[in-house]
């Protein structure tokens, strides 16, 4: 029987069936479940690396060493990994090497609408673009075959609607792929200019051959229907096109790059009007136009957000216009810090002190929302430290003494350590808060180098942040419990006023993994003076009711932060 699989699970299954030896990744929505699922196959060595660059380097090492390897990440993660990825395109690989990169049209949980196909073109790496879970599995296997045939890394690009959708998959047995020989080949694997000048022509030639094979590759498929309208599409957009435009002929590009020029020319010649329907950027459309083939698409679909079926029906088949999906006269429900979240105490105090907070990527980004409002900036993984340092350098001590950088344990390991080193090396002053909740929280609880557990939850070496800071030459390192708000306030005042570099480690485990009594709190209405202090922390469980407060027992986890703020002892268990 076919199995219902998440696109991400199907990618993992594809790697399993393709005989992959090593998978190294860094979590990032919508890609995380791939590597989580890979970790359930004992035949594959899997790990969470500190960041995507390291993960890709590990995968490259495995592939050059003769074992098929894969590295998975979200789209912005590929920017971090771009340095090794662009050059391994020249080196080539030995055993198969695949990068799975998940784009997020519509920014469901991302900071931009970056289109990975441009990286594929920029790095001259072929790129496959599946539409459903079956294709996720099949395309990963195809990617390994192409990688070894052409001595190239291959990108499998997903989008949220493919990665996070469950569709039916036919599974197969794992292929027995013996380790390939490793032969010392310095002219291929040492990226000196002298060597790479000789490799570059190979890259160009390889791409020409791939572009030629693209014309006959079965994943690039023509589905002829009427001749009035022809549509070139791929990925999730293909699914919408099939439902919105049943009369149209379709050229489905399973390989997004390089593109099959002859196949496209031939398809264009068979239809009266050619349109290109693609999520995000006009990647195909611009290329097709550059070949002198008349087509359109983005003039109607635009650059913003994700495509969907109705939009295509409206723009290309005079479909019905629908009213707005969102009703403006009801309150929105934005994501919030969970009840019991350790970051809440820290953000409450930072807001109270009116600090300029350079924030970072993770759950604590939510500390920027009402009522805490305690974040000024958020840019990229680890960016908090460099930004606060730069702001202090531009505006001087008066700014620096009220500015802090905040990032989580996993983000610190990912890209924070080098920023902190810059602050220690060049800073003179500056305050960093490491919000250490002992887990990679936002992506759904992955272990990381600071919590002492590997991907399987087994004991592993744990980074000692205090000693690391000390080794960087930072004299002031203070550990606080974010729920001891009085102490957090005292330490924050002391460390920001210090004209030296300091690090505050705000340490308390994520509420969702903490093991403790969760008896909910309730409000003793006899004692409650209705001062509303407890509502200032933005806890979703504390609700204003009848002039006072009511604690929702289905949400409260009994963390006790509100008890600390209540001067009248009205919040009790």
């Amino acid at each position, binding site marked *: 029987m076919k199995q219902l699989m998440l696109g991400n699970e199907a990618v993992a299954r594809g790697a399993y069936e393709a005989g992959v030896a090593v998978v190294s990744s860094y979590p990032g929505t919508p890609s995380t479940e791939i590597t989580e699922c890979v970790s359930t196959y004992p035949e594959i060595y899997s790990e969470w690396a500190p960041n995507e660059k390291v993960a890709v380097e590990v995968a490259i090492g495995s592939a050059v060493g003769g074992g098929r390897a894969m590295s998975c990440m979200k789209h912005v993660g590929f920017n971090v990994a771009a340095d090794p990825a662009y050059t391994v395109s020249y080196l080539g690989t030995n055993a198969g090497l695949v990068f799975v990169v998940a784009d997020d049209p519509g920014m469901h949980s991302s900071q931009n609408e970056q289109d990975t196909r441009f990286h594929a073109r920029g790095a001259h790496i072929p790129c496959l673009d599946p539409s459903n879970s079956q294709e996720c599995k099949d395309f990963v296997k195809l990617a390994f075959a192409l990688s070894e045939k052409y001595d190239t890394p291959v990108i499998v690009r997903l989008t949220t609607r493919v990665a996070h959708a469950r569709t039916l998959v036919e599974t197969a047995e794992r292929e027995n792929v013996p380790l390939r020989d490793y032969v010392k080949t310095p002219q291929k694997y040492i990226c000196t200019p002298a060597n790479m000048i000789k490799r570059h022509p190979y890259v160009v030639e390889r791409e020409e051959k791939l572009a030629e094979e693209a014309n006959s590759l079965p994943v690039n498929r023509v589905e002829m229907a009427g001749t009035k309208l022809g549509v070139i599409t791929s990925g999730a957009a293909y699914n919408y096109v099939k439902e919105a435009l049943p009369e149209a002929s379709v050229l489905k590009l399973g390989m997004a790059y390089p593109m099959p020029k002859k196949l496209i020319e031939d398809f264009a010649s068979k239809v009266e009007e050619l349109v290109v329907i693609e999520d995000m950027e006009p990647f195909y459309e611009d290329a097709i136009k550059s070949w002198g083939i008349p087509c359109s698409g983005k003039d109607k679909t635009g650059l913003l957000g994700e495509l969907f079926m109705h939009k295509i029906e409206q723009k290309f088949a005079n479909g019905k216009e629908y009213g707005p999906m969102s009703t403006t006269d009801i309150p929105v429900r934005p994501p919030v810090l969970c009840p019991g979240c350790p970051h809440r105490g820290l953000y409450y105090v930072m807001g109270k002190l009116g600090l300029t907070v350079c924030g970072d990527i993770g759950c604590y980004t939510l500390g920027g929302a009402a009522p805490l409002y305690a974040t000024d900036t958020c840019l990229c993984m680890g960016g908090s430290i460099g930004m606060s340092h730069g702001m202090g350098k531009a505006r001087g001590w008066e700014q620096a003494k009220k500015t802090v950088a905040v990032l989580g344990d996993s983000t610190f390991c990912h890209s924070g350590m080098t920023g902190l080193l810059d602050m220690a090396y060049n800073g003179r002053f500056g305050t960093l808060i490491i919000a250490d909740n002992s887990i990679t929280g936002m992506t759904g609880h992955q272990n990381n180098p600071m919590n002492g557990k590997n991907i399987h939850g087994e004991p592993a070496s744990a980074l000692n942040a205090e000693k690391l800071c000390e080794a960087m030459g930072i004299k002031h390192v203070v550990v606080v419990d974010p729920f001891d708000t009085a102490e957090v306030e005292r330490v924050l005042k002391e460390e920001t006023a210090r004209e030296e570099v300091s690090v505050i480690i705000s340490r308390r485990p994520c509420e969702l993994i903490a093991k403790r009594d969760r008896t909910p709190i309730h409000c003793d209405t006899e004692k409650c003076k209705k001062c509303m202090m407890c509502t200032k922390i933005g806890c979703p469980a504390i*609700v204003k009711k009848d002039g006072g407060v009511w604690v929702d027992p289905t949400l409260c986890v009994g963390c006790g932060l509100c008890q600390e703020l209540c001067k009248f002892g009205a919040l009790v268990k």
Partner: protein
Amino acid sequence: MFNIVIVGVGGQGTLLASKILGYLGTVNGYDVRVSEVHGMSQRGGSVVTYVRLSNDKPIYSTIVEQEQADVVLAFEKLEAVRALPYLKEDGAMIVNTQEILPMPVVIGQAEYPADCMARIHAACKQVVEVDATGMATACGTFKAANVVLLGVLAKKLPFQYADWMNAIENNVKEKFIDMNKKAFDMGYNL
């Protein structure tokens, strides 16, 4: 073909509901699409999951769009109002009467609409109101509200009672099976 939209608040257990529906469709020979929400939106925000089951027409898209839903299964009243545009003209709304206040309401920047049920009845002819959270609490934990709601939904889908029991057995932890079956029955026998 059935298009189902499951809406609620992050943490309410909408994923288990879609998992059970996907399982039911698969073992009964349907083509299935389930679209889930992960990451940012889990943190107490609005969550939307789409389930599409077909044993006749081919299906491609993994999402359900405006005016395509046969049923909206709403775990929370305000989220039910938000999901009204999904309903087909003759679509049905199953709504848990629980209220979870969104942050703008918690901090006094907005009010929780007093007329949620009136809005739902005005837009939809087939409304089933259920105190699923209360019923689940009576079975042992408010967390089983998702399965109470599946019990209500069962009456609108072409699967047998035994199929649902089998789906529960195969998708919840063993120690919770009996409690979840009890919760399912409360919705089913409503």
